[in-house]
């Protein structure tokens, strides 16, 4: 049986499974022997789990996600009462099967209900404007240097996540793309951003700040010039580099945190990203929980400085972010890990699909531009519903 048929069969069987982008294609994880629903208490024992393995297997790992609220609570930040759909704060799975898939995923479901675009936004332009002005004042008085306001688009719909994910991968083969299909929820994401890669004592993070669409007139060199000339993007990027250096410095040995790629352009299928790569060597006896607490929630999607900005955001936002700006990835039994930042994603839970987007308020951002930017980011995903 070929891979495509195998995938189709798995999908039709109704069994939960996860797909995560790999270097060459995708990895498929399924046949889950354990499912762990995380909360503020059991996360400690979950992360401190140590397993001795006689013979290591490629399924010796837990794969899943940490939601935004859980990551806040972990660093001592409480979230005021918000509208909440009661999605678990985090879910991890222990797979027993791992299968490699090619980049070219062929699956279509023409029967899958595609509705007209009837997404509703939770913050209209007028309210967005107000929030925007309020935060600009906070920037002027120095309470935050940059802040990312989240807006949500929601619609009632049943979706076929595999169909969505395959179509999304055709237009945007993102390096941190993933999908989760479980019985009562699914997530589809074309996240471009790696937050933590840990192998042994080596740890890296790869923040993105700056994205431009590819077209005939935009090649790699022009993209670099575009980013360099754009003072707003450059300043945002600088801030994130220093913030990520800081987060790594919490857990790394003195003198080992290095900017190994500073502000370079990476080329993807349809986009250019302005990225940096920061490396460090972990202090001895650093635990998994220390890594998660130091690095998450990822700074580039929140703003800076982290603690004050999170408090400002949480007091402003009326709806729980759920998975948005949380992290998806895996922890191997030997402590190695890979986690992304959950952005550019669709969460389907209780037959409601939600897409969250955010863009940054810095002192020289423009409200019209940022509001539109949010819509453009959401539109790529909303279009999948057509």
């Amino acid at each position: 049986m070929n891979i495509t048929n195998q995938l189709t069969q798995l999908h039709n069987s109704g069994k939960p499974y996860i797909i995560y982008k790999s270097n060459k294609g995708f990895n498929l994880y399924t046949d889950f022997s354990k499912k762990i629903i995380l909360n503020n208490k059991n996360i400690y024992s979950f992360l401190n789990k140590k397993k001795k393995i006689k013979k290591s297997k490629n399924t010796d790992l837990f794969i899943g996600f940490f939601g935004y609220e859980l990551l806040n609570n972990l660093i001592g930040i409480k979230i005021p009462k918000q509208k909440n759909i009661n999605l678990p704060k985090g879910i991890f799975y222990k797979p027993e099967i791992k299968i490699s898939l090619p980049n070219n995923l062929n699956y279509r479901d023409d029967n899958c209900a595609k509705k007209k675009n009837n997404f509703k936004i939770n913050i209209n332009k007028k309210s967005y404007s107000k929030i925007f002005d309020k935060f600009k004042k906070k920037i002027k008085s120095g309470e935050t240097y940059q802040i990312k306001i989240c807006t949500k688009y929601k619609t009632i719909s049943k979706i076929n996540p595999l169909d969505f994910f395959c179509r999304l991968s055709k237009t945007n083969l993102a390096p941190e793309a993933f999908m989760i299909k479980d019985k009562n929820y699914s997530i589809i994401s074309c996240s471009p951003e790696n937050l933590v890669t840990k192998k042994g004592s080596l740890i890296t993070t790869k923040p993105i700040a700056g994205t431009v669409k590819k077209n005939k007139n935009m090649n790699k060199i022009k993209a670099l010039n575009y980013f360099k000339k754009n003072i707003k993007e450059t300043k945002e990027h600088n801030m994130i580099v220093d913030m990520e250096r800081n987060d790594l410095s919490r857990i790394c040995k003195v003198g080992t945190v290095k900017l190994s790629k500073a502000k370079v352009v990476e080329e993807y299928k349809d986009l250019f990203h302005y990225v940096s790569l920061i490396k460090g060597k972990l202090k001895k006896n650093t635990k998994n929980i220390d890594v998660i607490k130091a690095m998450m929630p990822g700074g580039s999607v929140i703003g800076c400085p982290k603690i004050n900005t999170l408090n400002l955001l949480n007091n402003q936002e009326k709806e729980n972010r759920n998975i948005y700006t949380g992290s998806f990835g895996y922890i191997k039994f030997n402590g190695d890990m890979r986690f992304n930042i959950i952005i550019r994603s669709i969460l389907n839970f209780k037959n409601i699909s939600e897409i969250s987007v955010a863009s940054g308020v810095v002192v020289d951002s423009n409200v019209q531009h940022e509001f539109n930017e949010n819509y453009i980011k959401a539109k790529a995903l909303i279009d999948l519903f057509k």
Partner: protein
Amino acid sequence: MIYLIDHNDSFTHNVVHQFSLFDKVECDNYNNISKNKLEKASAIVLSPGPGSPKSYPITSKIYRKFKGKKKIIGICLGFQQILFCEGAKIVEQKKIYHGFQSNIQVISDKSLFKKGKKFKVGRYHSLKLKEPFKIKDFEITMRCLESKVAMSFENNKNKIYGFQFHPESFLTINGNLLIKKILSA
């Protein structure tokens, strides 16, 4: 040992790593200060942070207590905090510098650094020192070449130093040398 007082900033640990190149560093949050460590420290560093000096009365108290007794170094908010304690006004500026690389210059011959020397530095500040500013023994020693905003002060008599920019930022060229010189002063 250097005792670093953190004001909940996202750059504090860059400062920790930078100072750790020269001495042992202990770092605690401003609302969780250890008296013991304060007493033991050979130098106290006030970290960058959000907000204005008014919001950190505990830090002001520490500054007043140890002024003249220990070397004190302030960075960004820490720079403002020290000047605020000395009676200066800290005000909003029209142009805001967050993630900005600027050219600055040593403008005083009373500085540990050579007058006329230029540096490229990283800046993250909404607020600035209101001038004219005149306080005994405090000398503005560096300014932004473009905006002329005060970028460092030195009080070599009491060994109090402050940088409005961020010596620990990747945008600051040779930041380690600046710190080394201040620490050996």
